[in-house]
């Protein structure tokens, strides 16, 4: 059937199936959310929260379930950017942007490079470990415990407050001076460590080649 229809080649089965499923799942949720918002049951912020939460959780699930590691890392991007939106909803503009800056630009590229230097070269499909059921159990357990505990606890009804950016900076550099220096040292260690590793690996490559 797909050959007969004058379909563009790019709208092939994968995309169509994936898109249909995604659309089928997402559309009702979106409609419900929009409806709720318009009727005033939830605030706009809450609506955005649910959307972002959907993206984050979906992305995270994708990142741990998808077999193709490049796709998994794509899915991770969704999670990390969604988390930035959550930070924003938590009224911490700065952290949100930092999340985008560090993860969106840096860590993801690092991951992609690493992927392309390893598995993704020829065969981006990986097999998961044999302890999947066990892992699943543990994860469900942990998640269940946490969630019940969290929901059980009495949080009162606290409201979030905006933290002025300038105060934040002042606070870090006044009260957390030692950790800042430690962070610098840590970064330095990471840097040198990575270099040493990479150099060794390269040296090994040279050896293997000669």
């Amino acid at each position, binding site marked *: 059937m797909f050959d007969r229809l004058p379909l563009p080649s790019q709208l092939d089965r994968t995309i169509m199936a994936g898109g249909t499923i995604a659309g089928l799942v997402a559309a009702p949720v979106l409609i419900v959310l929009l409806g709720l918002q318009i009727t005033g049951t939830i605030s706009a912020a809450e609506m955005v929260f649910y959307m972002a939460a959907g993206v984050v959780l979906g992305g*995270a699930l994708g990142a741990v379930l998808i077999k193709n590691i490049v796709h998994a890392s794509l899915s991770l991007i969704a999670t990390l950017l969604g988390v930035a939106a959550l930070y924003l909803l938590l009224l911490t503009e700065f952290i949100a942007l930092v999340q985008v800056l560090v993860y969106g630009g840096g*860590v993801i590229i690092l991951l992609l490079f690493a992927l392309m230097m*390893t598995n993704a070269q020829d065969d981006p499909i990986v097999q998961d*470990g044999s302890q999947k059921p066990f892992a699943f159990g543990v*994860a469900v357990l942990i998640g269940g415990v946490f969630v019940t505990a969290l929901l059980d606890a009495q949080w009162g009804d606290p409201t979030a*407050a905006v933290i002025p950016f300038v105060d934040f900076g002042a606070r870090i550099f006044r009260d957390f001076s030692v950790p800042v220096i430690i*962070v610098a040292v840590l970064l330095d260690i990471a840097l040198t460590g*990575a270099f*040493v590793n990479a150099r060794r690996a390269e040296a090994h490559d040279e050896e293997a080649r000669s």
Partner: protein
Amino acid sequence: MIPIENFLVLSALLFAIGFYGVLARRSAILILMSVEIMLAGVAINFIAFASYLDHDAFSGLVFALFVITVAAAEVGLALGVVLRLFRERRTANVDEANSLKW
């Protein structure tokens, strides 16, 4: 206003998903990605507490910042190790890399 529970539950779920990934995945890079997810959950938790409960001290924020920082450093370093492992063993699977004498 969004109730704080939402964020807390979300962070717990993220943590659990990440945990699953760490246990279930074999490729070291994917494990690192799962760790990132766990750390993201933790950071959300920190920030939620900071902005909801800790209005003027906001140590939670600083902590989250440090978490992000350390996570970045960790990824860099760990990927270096993974790459070296890959270069020498031609594998990024943690199962195959169980003998640590290289």
